[in-house]
């Protein structure tokens, strides 16, 4: 699964994207975020406050309880601020 990070999430993790293979127990975006938070100290600073995060699965915005089954690309980012 390809993960993409944007804005301060990208800065805190230190990279814009990475390939991961979460365990089968990780089935939702929220569980993925919790799993990522334990991956490294840098990940912990990016994913430690899940209430501040939003996500897209295969380029569509989804709620944090959305399934990641079969997802090729998951993006994690702060609330958007365009316009």
């Amino acid at each position: 699964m390809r993960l993409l990070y944007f804005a301060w999430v990208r800065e805190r993790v230190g990279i814009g994207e990475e390939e991961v293979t979460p365990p089968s127990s990780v089935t939702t975006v929220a569980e993925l975020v919790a799993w990522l938070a334990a991956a490294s100290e840098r990940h912990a600073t990016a994913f430690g406050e899940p209430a501040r995060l939003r996500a897209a699965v295969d380029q569509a915005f989804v709620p944090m309880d959305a399934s990641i089954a079969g997802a090729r690309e998951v993006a994690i980012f702060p609330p958007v601020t365009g316009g």
Partner: protein
Amino acid sequence: MIRVTVSTAAIEVAAELAALERDGAVASFTGLVRGDDGVATLELEHYPGATEAALERLAAAASARWSLSAATIVHRVGAMAPGERIVFVGTCAPHRGAALEACAYLIDRLKTDAPFWKRETVNGAARWVEARHGDGEAAARWE
């Protein structure tokens, strides 16, 4: 006709407006970078591919809901200075009501539905702009 552009190039409003003149009423919104609180530069990050797709979905939804003759969304990304144009939304319809409403819809929904992130630099320090609570309310009135 739907036109969506996400680019580092400057936004040429006159040309965008002229291209929209396909029926009786054209409405537009232009957003400029504000220099509030000593902001020196504003940088726009986006999600390549997903951003364009989100804007195209919005333009298609507005076109269907208000029977638009044309809809244009242009959003700049990269570094900008105060006073520069950051976003342009334009609509064309047979009459003003549809053009004006669709234009307001597009800019309200763009703020919540399209993946862009602003980072501003003030006195040499960069900070990510926080989402505004009012943006969600403005977008929700079109539900």
